[in-house]
């Protein structure tokens, strides 16, 4: 084992004089009474610079260092779901103290718990890394036990356990490599987090909608299974609320939430809410399909970078089991800032806004790990990734937002103005986009599964919005009376779309989640209303008329889809539509 000693401490950057071989990104342990973890991030001659995953107070020059020979790894196996991890995958609930003391770390998985194992492979099967050997029940999820991802080549199954209870370190299969050597497989394996987890055959192009339950996303800017998106916005505009709304209402089968450098109270909210909320996919409680990785803003900065990689690796792991995984990270800016702090201490030549020059590449590599994949057995699995961004000064012209825009395919821009006027979710409907809407794959999928010509309808809705906002600008410049009444009609149509489709109350038990079926109905309904040939004498009439309409449509959104009150409000809309057209006919 390589050893060394601390020769410098600059905040959480350690300078270590090394004796022997050392690897970039190798984890070392520093003796400070307790053994503290650090990651090597630069090597110059015999001096390794390492970022300490802890506060460095109490580290003394001369402290002993041991190098572990491996990179930062996660433990993969049953027992990840419902867990609350810190940024290095320590189970927070196993820590005893009220405070997390320096060097506190716990096992990620429960070594004593026994799971009912059901074999999926049989003697003589030929298998490779990632192939399913068996399955255990983890909450309600079938957790596949796979051939370790780090094992290369093909193997033959020589023994597989029959259905029985096992603990994670028990041997459940023996497989033989080409050279005739036998390897024992347990239910737990390790993987270095900074390396994309393979174990699938190929990535395919996304084209199947990933429903979030939010109209402004699903209808207007749809996310795909295995897609990527980012949510930038000034503070307080609703990034976290939006992400949590997606978490609660989406069709994800597995949910990985990375609370990266944000508020502790926000994770506390998840802790307290999720065990009581029903997952719309499985009908079980939401925490059953969820794991939370939290490195809140007061936890060690270096572990912040680790936290997003831990989350991604866990997501990739469940993808290999054939699940639809949703990974959420709030906020990726904090991760970028952690990189900046470190780069600064290393005295590297900085890029824009003092961020490290490799930031765009780092972000691109990370987003690229999402995707929908085909597994060895022909099944599909996906990791859909949505990250938030907290741009300095709320200005999107900054390195993290710009770097992300180059890789992420969906852009959900939160607007200060909309948030100020409480038009939630404050997603700017015109600045935001989903590149998937132009994918041929999505066109075909939506034609078949949502409605023929769906994409065209969505684009019409966007056009109406655009026209309405242009009309509004004209009205604001020229004055209410100086523009034709038609301008007011256009503007109020866009308001109807805004209130009826874009705005959605994430705190209302009914409005918070809208199934695609209901969204289709509302889109058609509103397009239908907008296509009416309205007649008004003056703009005041327009305003009063549409306010009435908007009120009714909002009440529809607050009612159960298809319920009697839903129909009642709908009938009222139809009634006043008829009145106007009758008026027109007279």
């Amino acid at each position: 084992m390589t050893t060394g000693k601390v020769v410098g401490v600059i905040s959480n950057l350690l300078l270590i004089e090394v004796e022997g071989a050392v690897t970039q990104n190798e984890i070392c342990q520093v003796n400070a009474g307790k053994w503290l973890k650090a990651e090597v991030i630069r090597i110059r001659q015999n001096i390794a610079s390492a970022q300490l995953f802890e506060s460095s107070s109490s580290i003394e020059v001369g402290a002993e260092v041991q190098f572990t020979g491996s990179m930062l790894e996660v433990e993969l196996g049953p027992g990840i779901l419902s867990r609350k991890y810190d940024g290095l995958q320590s189970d927070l609930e196993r820590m005893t103290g009220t405070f997390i003391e320096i060097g506190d770390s716990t096992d990620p998985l429960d070594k004593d718990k026994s799971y009912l194992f059901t074999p999926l492979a049989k003697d003589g099967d030929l298998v490779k890394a990632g192939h399913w050997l068996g399955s255990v029940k983890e909450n309600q999820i079938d957790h596949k036990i796979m051939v370790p991802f780090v094992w290369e080549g093909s193997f033959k199954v020589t023994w597989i356990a029959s259905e029985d209870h096992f603990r994670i370190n028990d041997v459940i299969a023996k497989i033989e490599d080409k050279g005739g050597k036998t390897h024992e497989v347990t239910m737990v394996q390790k993987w270095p987090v900074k390396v994309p987890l393979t174990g699938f055959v190929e990535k395919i192009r996304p084209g199947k909608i990933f429903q979030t339950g939010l109209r402004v996303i699903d209808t207007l800017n749809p996310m795909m299974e295995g897609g990527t998106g980012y949510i930038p916005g000034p503070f307080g505009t609703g990034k976290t609320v939006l992400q949590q709304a997606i978490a609660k209402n989406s069709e994800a089968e597995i949910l990985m939430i990375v609370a990266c450098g944000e508020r502790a109270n926000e994770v506390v909210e998840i802790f307290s809410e999720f065990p009581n909320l029903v997952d719309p996919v499985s009908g079980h409680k939401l925490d059953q399909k969820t794991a939370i990785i939290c490195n809140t803003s007061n936890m060690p900065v270096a572990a912040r970078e680790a936290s997003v990689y831990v989350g991604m690796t866990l997501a990739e792991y469940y993808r290999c089991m054939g699940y639809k995984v949703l990974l959420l990270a709030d906020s990726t800016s904090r991760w970028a800032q952690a990189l900046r702090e470190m780069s600064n201490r290393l005295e590297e030549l900085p890029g824009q806004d003092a961020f490290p020059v490799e930031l765009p590449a780092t972000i691109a590599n990370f987003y690229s790990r999402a995707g929908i994949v085909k597994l060895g057995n022909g099944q599909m699995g996906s990791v859909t990734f949505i990250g938030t961004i907290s741009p300095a000064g709320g200005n999107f012209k900054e390195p993290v937002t710009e770097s992300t825009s180059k890789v992420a395919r969906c852009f959900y821009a939160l607007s200060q103005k909309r948030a100020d006027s409480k038009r939630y979710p404050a997603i700017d409907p015109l600045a935001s986009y989903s590149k998937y809407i132009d994918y041929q794959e999505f066109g075909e999928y939506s034609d078949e599964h949502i409605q023929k010509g769906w994409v065209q309808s969505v684009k019409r809705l966007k056009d109406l919005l655009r026209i309405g906002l242009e009309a509004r600008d004209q009205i604001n410049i020229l004055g209410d009376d100086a523009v034709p009444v038609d301008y007011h009609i256009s503007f109020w149509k866009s308001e109807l779309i805004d209130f009826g489709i874009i705005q959605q109350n994430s705190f209302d038990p009914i409005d918070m989640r809208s199934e695609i079926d209901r969204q289709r109905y509302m889109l058609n309904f509103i397009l239908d209303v907008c296509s009416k040939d309205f007649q008004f004498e003056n703009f005041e009439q327009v305003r009063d008329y549409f306010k009435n309409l908007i009120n009714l449509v909002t009440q529809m959104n607050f009612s159960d889809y298809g319920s009697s009150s839903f129909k009642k409000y709908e009938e009222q809309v139809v009634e006043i539509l008829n009145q106007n057209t009758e008026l027109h006919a007279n």
Partner: protein
Amino acid sequence: MQTKAFRKTYTRIERITKATCVLKASSVRFGELAWVEKKPAQVISIIGELVTLQVFGGTEGLSTHAHVVFTGKPPSLAVSDLLAGRFFNALGQPLDGLSPVKGEEREIKGPAVNPVKRAKPNVILTTGIAGIDLNNTLVTGQKIPFFADPDQSYNQVMAEVALRAEADKIILGGMGLSNDDFIFFKNTFEAAGVLDKIVGFVNTSEDPPLERLLIPDMACTAAEYFANDKKEKVLLLLTDMTLYADALAIVANKMDQIPSKDSMPGSLYSDLASIYEKAVQFEHGGSITMIAVTTLNEGDITHAIPDNTGYITEGQLYLKHDTDIGKVIVDPFRSLSRLKQNVIGIKTRQDHPQLMNALIRLYADAMNAKTKKENGFDLNDYDVRCLAFARDYATKLLAVDINITVNEMLDTGWGLLQAHFEKYEVGVKDELLQKHWKKEPQTSA
């Protein structure tokens, strides 16, 4: 401290900047406290034998042959119940001429609370100010700053809030506090008869600016003692965090760090978060609620200090002088309490959330009408009604001189809606309208 006697004295300083000095020393720990002559200092970097000290008292008059002694431990505070009713400087030394407090020595930059040991903050903290209780309801365990222009009476508002909120202890962290404001705080607390609930850590504008770097950590350590050890409800006041951040920038600059936005260190977010995240609700009932002041430069909230603060705190209260009514109001647009949804409509009346939103939306319409008017356009009837509503709303609910109960605020709100608008204009659920919209038309609220 018997060990002190054996501590080696160094007498050769190699480099001196306005905030730091560098010397050769051995067996030094990162973060430990040292004394440079009579000035406190802290180890902020060690490279081989070269140790950099941040000198809190400033380096004016420092000689290369000054005596430097390392204490072997980080800055600490002696905590006990005896802290109550006392005022201290940034080093925790008494400012009141009385003897030092005896108690358990605690390092001042303590570890983070394990998130799973926190409780969800959901106990309402009322202030009587509708701009806060109605629109931006606070809960215990929350952290929230006032964003204020330097000429606003933010310290007065904060003192008022502190006195009205129910707290077992009020801890004041004053950074660059003017001596006048320091005396104001002392007098106000004394007049209210609550001096025995107060613990003050104060660095006035006459004290060395770098010393204020220790104030928030000192105050947090005392707060944690009362909130966790004693299970008390603690209210922590920090004013002015902008001056704290300015001090951080000075040190970073003297350390040759590459600044990020607005000459602030790249670590500003983490530095501020490590303070604000001390706000906590414990399961046992103890809590730390933090109310801070961040003064703005010409109202610019995109400046790195308010910007990073906004990204950390659970909302912000934005004080604004409303020229139409000639009073200071809590601006309903930029102000926000993110934890309000934990209590509004749950701990308060069910109509609270919708009514609050309706009022703010209509106030926004009024602001649009105002812009229209300023641009010389004719106002329509709706605009005129909105403007009349806005005046009433500002006077009866937004002004900081209001002191009424939450139910009174809600009733006032419904009254305003009815006085100026029709049912269909307010965008509130039918169910609530039926309950709260009085049958007979009202003339005035």
